[in-house]
């Protein structure tokens, strides 16, 4: 085993065999230590939320990871390579130059209110840029109807930081415990509630258009919502619950209409988490 060991001979057999063995051990140990060191660095640099999102995104069903340009019909298929963060996406930037997103759209889609003055995150939150430079964050109408009347809302304290696709706040309703994803990077200034129509006021970490480029807007909202309604139908039907009828309008508290559905699973699907 070792040169000072009884029975050890410094011959080719020992050198080759033990050399290979020690190399394997060193590689395995280095890999584990490397993972531990990286983990420590991630913890120190507060990357937990970033990692949680990447891990969740990786585990989402393939059809839920499609690029926004697939939703609008510009691409036939394609998985988003940037985990829904279009800020660094070159393809998205090029497409925006060629075909800027039409500003128009509908305020009411499938009987739900989607005002045009705000930008929408695929995890069912919206962000509205205010005149004073702050950003108001709230749940979109489908998100609100999915969560109905929450049993509990856990909001971050003013001064806390949120990051894009990280946890903005938590909502508990029936058996569902939902991490609502943040549409923006920034610092929490004030917290609201469902009655006020918004949940967070955030001082954005950066100014300009780039920090909001990943959010859906204008003419993109309708095709996205169409896909979301399909996803909701599929998710609800998976549990053996009755499917939504075509042509209707979602109830204000969808969860109450499906008492037997696994609402935790439905919400995890719709709010993009595992």
């Amino acid at each position, binding site marked *: *085993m070792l040169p000072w*060991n*009884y*029975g050890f001979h410094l011959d080719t*057999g*020992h050198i080759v*065999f*033990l050399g290979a*063995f020690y190399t*394997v*051990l060193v*590689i*395995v140990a280095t*890999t*584990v230590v*490397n*993972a*531990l060191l*990286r*983990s420590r660095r*991630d*913890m120190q640099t507060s*990357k*937990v939320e970033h*990692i*949680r999102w*990447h*891990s969740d995104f990786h*585990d989402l*069903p*393939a*059809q839920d990871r499609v690029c926004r340009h697939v939703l609008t019909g510009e691409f036939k298929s394609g998985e988003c390579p940037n985990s829904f963060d279009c800020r660094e996406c070159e393809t998205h930037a090029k497409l925006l130059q060629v075909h800027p997103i039409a500003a128009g759209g509908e305020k009411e889609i499938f009987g739900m209110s989607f005002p045009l003055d705000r930008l929408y995150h695929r995890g069912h939150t919206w962000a509205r840029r205010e005149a004073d430079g702050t950003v108001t964050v709230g749940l979109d109408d489908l998100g609100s109807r999915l969560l109905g009347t929450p049993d509990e809302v856990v909001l971050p304290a003013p001064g806390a930081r949120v990051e894009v696709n990280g946890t903005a706040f938590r909502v508990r309703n029936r058996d569902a415990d939902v991490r609502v994803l943040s549409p923006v990077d920034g610092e929490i200034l004030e917290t609201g509630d469902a009655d006020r129509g918004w949940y967070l006021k955030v001082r954005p970490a950066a100014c300009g258009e780039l920090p909001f480029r990943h959010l859906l807007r204008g003419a993109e909202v309708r095709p996205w919502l169409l896909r979301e309604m399909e996803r909701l139908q*599929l*998710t609800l*039907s*998976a549990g053996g619950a009755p499917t939504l009828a075509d042509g209707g309008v979602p109830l204000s508290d969808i969860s109450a209409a499906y008492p037997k559905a*696994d609402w*935790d*699973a439905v919400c*995890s*699907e719709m709010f993009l*988490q*595992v």
Partner: protein
Amino acid sequence: MDREFIARGVKRCSTGKFLLWILPWAALLAFGLYSAGLCLIKGLNQTNMDNRFAFGLWIFLDLTVIALGAGAFFTGFLLYILKIKDLRAVINSAVVIGLVCYSGAVCVLGVDVGQPLRAWFTFWYPNVHSMLTEVTFCITCYLTVLTIEYLPIVLKNRKLRQIPSFLVFEFELHKLIYVLAGVGTFLSFFHQGSLGGLYGVLRGRPFAFREGFAVWPSTFFLFIISAAAVGPSFVLLTTWLVEKISRKKLVKPEVFSLLGRISGLLLSVYVLAKTVDTLIWINRTSPESGFPAAQYYSWQPFGTWILFAEIVLFGLVPALMLLAPQLRARTGWLVTAAMMACCGVALNRFVMTVQTLALPTLSFDRFLSYFPSWQETGTFLAVVAFGVLVYSISFRYFQLFPSERELRRF
């Protein structure tokens, strides 16, 4: 009761039902542990092995489960090194199968070798010229690798991943998993080969002795190819079985077909190599040792049927079935072929272990028969029970099939 530990979007039976399922397996494990304890405390006199029949049920079991568990290294190799992404659907299950098979094999080896307090001797004073030393080193190293590969699966549990340090470590370890997959492939390659090699170098057993390349007899390569061939088949078979027991769709039909095709391709290579090897052995190696090959098959019940069953019935036939797209598209045929391939490798390991030792080699020798004692059988069953328990618990609490949630929708 344990709902918070079960992944979101997947359905599992109630805790009570699950406990009822694991209870008989736990009882079997307890019986097996008692049997193994007797062997460890009282010695190998509890078994029906002796100085002549030194390899019995346990070594047969070891060789078989290690071959069947090869799905872990081979699926990892195909996914992380050759980037066959579709296999992501079964990689976690393959890792659990590998872990179960290897840990079971190591435990049984521990009972067989005995003297557990001196287990470290094999590492501290290794005989580097022994194939068994290579096997011991590779198996323990690979079991370590499999345990590390299993760790991200455990840490991805719904409850555990709420702990930030676990979530981050799982994420970072998973990013480096291709290194472990590479190491696993290297280790598996050598220990599967060495297991075959240790029979091939038995000059005193002309039934097993083979010529080869450099220091490696042909059995070294045959064991590697056969293990790589049946590994995917066993993953396929297990997945199908779990689907049937849990009454859930776990992977897409294309994944079954892919596993079948990979297995079929490698099995046909194995059958070809095994046929060439057998022909060389019949016409050259065995006669040169002073034994016409026909003589081995004159001892009943090991007639030529066993050779036919090994190469044609459980080799060529499943290989052709797995290679035919029309048959592969039908689950019944696919599963039957995978089952036959697994039986084929088990039969091969049985022949190499039991038939080799049963046949007389000296003029005053007689044909030996061996039947395992209840203690041996109990220890064998403990490995089966252990495997079912670990797999059942893993299936319930960890995401062994990432597509399950997606497939639940349809």
